[in-house]
């Protein structure tokens, strides 16, 4: 009896295996797929590399409140604040982030920073191709994190390389 029972169980298990063998594959064809994402697909809520957002006027939303840095469990956000002046206005509030670095050696993509941000400045984008042969390349500076500036402000060399190549005025990346 016991033998029969075992055979039945194996047959039941294998039937699923064989059935699945003839189903179409659902593995993504990354990186050989079509489109800019080369076959990668994301859930909307996927937490990838961060993007620092701009407001409707193209000003940076970040006001250098340090709350994201305080919330970060792996302590990977480094900020230096500075005051906006009439001649040099970067954000809409009194202060802005002069330096904003995220160290992707340490970031665990928990999303706490996004949760903490009072101005919705820091968000998770879908960037995931972060791997590098050099750990120091993993410290992203503000210029790499900022979302593309609206056309009237000029293009960001890092993100809008195609526009820049096409002749758009390039926003200088300080210190680079």
């Amino acid at each position, binding site marked *: 009896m016991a033998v029969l029972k075992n055979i039945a169980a194996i047959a039941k298990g294998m039937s699923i295996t064989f059935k699945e063998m003839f189903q179409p594959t659902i593995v993504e064809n990354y990186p050989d797929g079509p489109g800019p994402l080369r076959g990668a697909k994301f859930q909307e809520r996927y937490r990838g590399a961060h993007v620092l957002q701009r407001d409707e006027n193209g000003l940076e939303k970040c*006001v*250098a*409140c*340090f*709350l994201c*840095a*305080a919330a970060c469990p792996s302590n990977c956000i480094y*900020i*230096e*604040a*500075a*005051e906006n002046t009439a001649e040099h206005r970067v954000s809409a*509030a*009194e*202060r802005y982030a002069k330096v904003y670095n995220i160290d992707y050696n340490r970031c665990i993509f928990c999303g706490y920073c996004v949760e903490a941000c*009072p*101005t919705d400045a820091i968000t998770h984008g879908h960037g995931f191709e972060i791997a590098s042969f050099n750990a120091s390349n993993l410290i992203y500076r503000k210029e790499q994190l900022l979302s593309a500036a609206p056309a009237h402000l000029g293009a960001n060399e890092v993100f809008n390389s195609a526009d820049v190549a096409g002749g758009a005025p390039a926003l200088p990346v300080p210190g680079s």
Partner: protein
Amino acid sequence: MADAPKEISLTVDGKKVTSPPGTLLIEACKTVGIEVPSFCYYPNFSLQGACRMCLVKIEKMPKLQTACTTVISEAMTVTTNNEEVRQARKAMLEMLLGNHPLDCPVCDAGGECELQDMTFSYGAAESKFMEAKNHKDEQQWSPVVYFDRPRCILCYRCVRVCGEGMDVWALGVQNRGVVSVIAPNKEDHLECEECGMCIDICPVGALTSGAYRYKTRPWEMKHVGTICTHCGDGCKTTLGVRRAESGLQIVRGDNRDKSGINGDFLCIKGRYAFDFADNPERLKQPLVRKDGRLLPATWEEAFELIGKRFSEIRDKDGQSIGVVGSTRTTNEENYLLSKFARLVLKTNNIDHHRTADFPAFAAALAGKTDRTASMRDVFNAPAILLIGNNPTDQHPLLAWQIRNNVRLHRARLYAINCQPIKLRRQATNFMEIPSGAEGKVAAFLAGDDTAADALTSATASRDGWRQLREKLRTEQNLVIIFGSEIRGNDLPTLVKFGLAIPGAKFVCLGDYANSRGAADMGLYPDLLPGYHRVADAGKFHEEWGKIPSAPGIALPAMADAAKTGKLKGLYVVGANPVARLGFDPFAFSKSFVVVQDMFLTETASIADVVLPVANAYEKSGTFTNTCGDLQLLKKAGEVSDTKPDFEIIVRIADAMGFDVRKLVPFGTGTRADMGQSRGAQSGEADRHAVWLEAHGLEPKMSPFDPMAILDEIQRLVPGYDVSQINLLSGNDQHTNLMSQSAGSAAHDGSLIAPANDDLFTSGTLGRYSRALNSVIENRHLQPAETEVAAD
């Protein structure tokens, strides 16, 4: 004394509380650990009852009462936390937030804001107010004071600290009721002492500091408690430090934790004038003169050159190197310099910028104990006699202590001055005397009636003087404070008068942060540490080795000796005698001059070698304030490529071929033996090293560690044998000045040159502070200030 009044007992939230009569309910609650939330209440200032945050339920009273204005009475029964009270607090907060902006992310107070904390603990989650908020733009009231009106919760703390605490009365209230606003004294700006006390005491982010605003956030900084490097009062200041490109940058100074002798007081210099550290003119590389020009060089090159030249001069010409010490370097550095001059350079030609006659003071008090007052005594003394000086300008903390002693303890202040100084407003008796007559005052007080002739004026008659003397003679525990006007022979005369008063204590006012330390550590041509005469150096011969027995030459004589070619080398550690003491810069054109400084000062620019140093905020060690309170410095800032003076002195000794172990007894003593000497268990030593580092102390295993010499100082300098554990944990320790040798009263009084700094200047150092300069410039733009009467 009368019997201590009977304690009063009451019940708070079921707990039994006993406190002396007259205690405020809010304070009584604190004693049993019950917090009553408050905004407008601030200990030691007049009661305001403005915010109604402190409402509590007192049995048999119809309505809720404010705990900050209610004095306790027998058998009171208080509830601080029932539904009614909680609702009242919630309502108060909702009202405060009614027109409060949502600025927390950019507001400087964010993270240490009392309104945030209260809303968190006691507030409602949402507001019933729907109205648009009434916005007003931020105003700049002075280079260092900014006001953001919508954030103000009208607690009037700033008004009271400025008026009652500072006696400046620059802030006031305009309008009444809901439209009240805090306003500065000159319509749209402030003319005041710029102390920043109002900013510090503001519970919210309404008053913000020009130096710190928008730079960082409180939790992002490291907070290091150290001692102010400006005047001789020795305020404890907690510096907020953040990382910067060239090391660690200081961005804020305050003393909110009220540790130290100054409580939460700081003047403008302690609060803002740390910014000289990142002045772009700061030297960050040694300079060596080549072909007549000062050119950058390496440290090795510089040390080698100094070692070679100093050895040559010492061996060829004997006593022909002069040493000028500093009044802003630590006791350890001054002691080391004193020892270095005598042992390595083999000369007694060492001096410093003297700002008070400490040797005469030591001599006059020889053999007496407990006759020097600490800064704390000045706040608690029943009576104070102040002769000369203008503490409001030159010793802001001392002035604060005197003012608040008079205000809170009704102390009697007798002030005698040749100027109508501001402290006369607190004085029971103010006597204006002709300029330079302070010595006559000492003589008159000591019993010489003829001296009164030179003192009488329209306000001070002969009888007035006699009455004053009689009154002083009947005082007890009088604290006698005198400026550098009293020096030479006048000093023992005054001390003699004071010693006849039971419990009288003295304060001799020196001007810079460690003027007293420089004197105590023997930066004198004729005195060793502890005012021991070089001629009878006794135990120093045993401890140090051979010391030349003839006194060296004093500062002015060094310039003369250089002119005649007798002085061939000059070693200046953190001093600027060319600018401050009128040294002839050309006198040294033939001498080999080494200067250690932060900047290319007038003195540094005549040097052959200039070495860039770390300032007092960038090293550890101890300072002695003008009262003799010994306090610990902790390293806060850091600028790479500078070295502390201590290390530089040791390295020069090494470059001269001297055994540095004879100079700095490192690796020995109590603190060193925290495991290190137990070789096999070196893990133990490491753990101690980690612990010491974590506490800002360095394990005593290096000749560059100033703490290595502290044991020796404590052993050899009388009065410095204070509790080391207390000192190292950041408490002030009063050193008792007891000169075992007779000190020296015979100093030439003309060698004393008071700094005459005012509130906004600080010797050579002040010139490099942006904050101080901006305030000075701003004053030049404004019409001259007139004194405001106290209301």
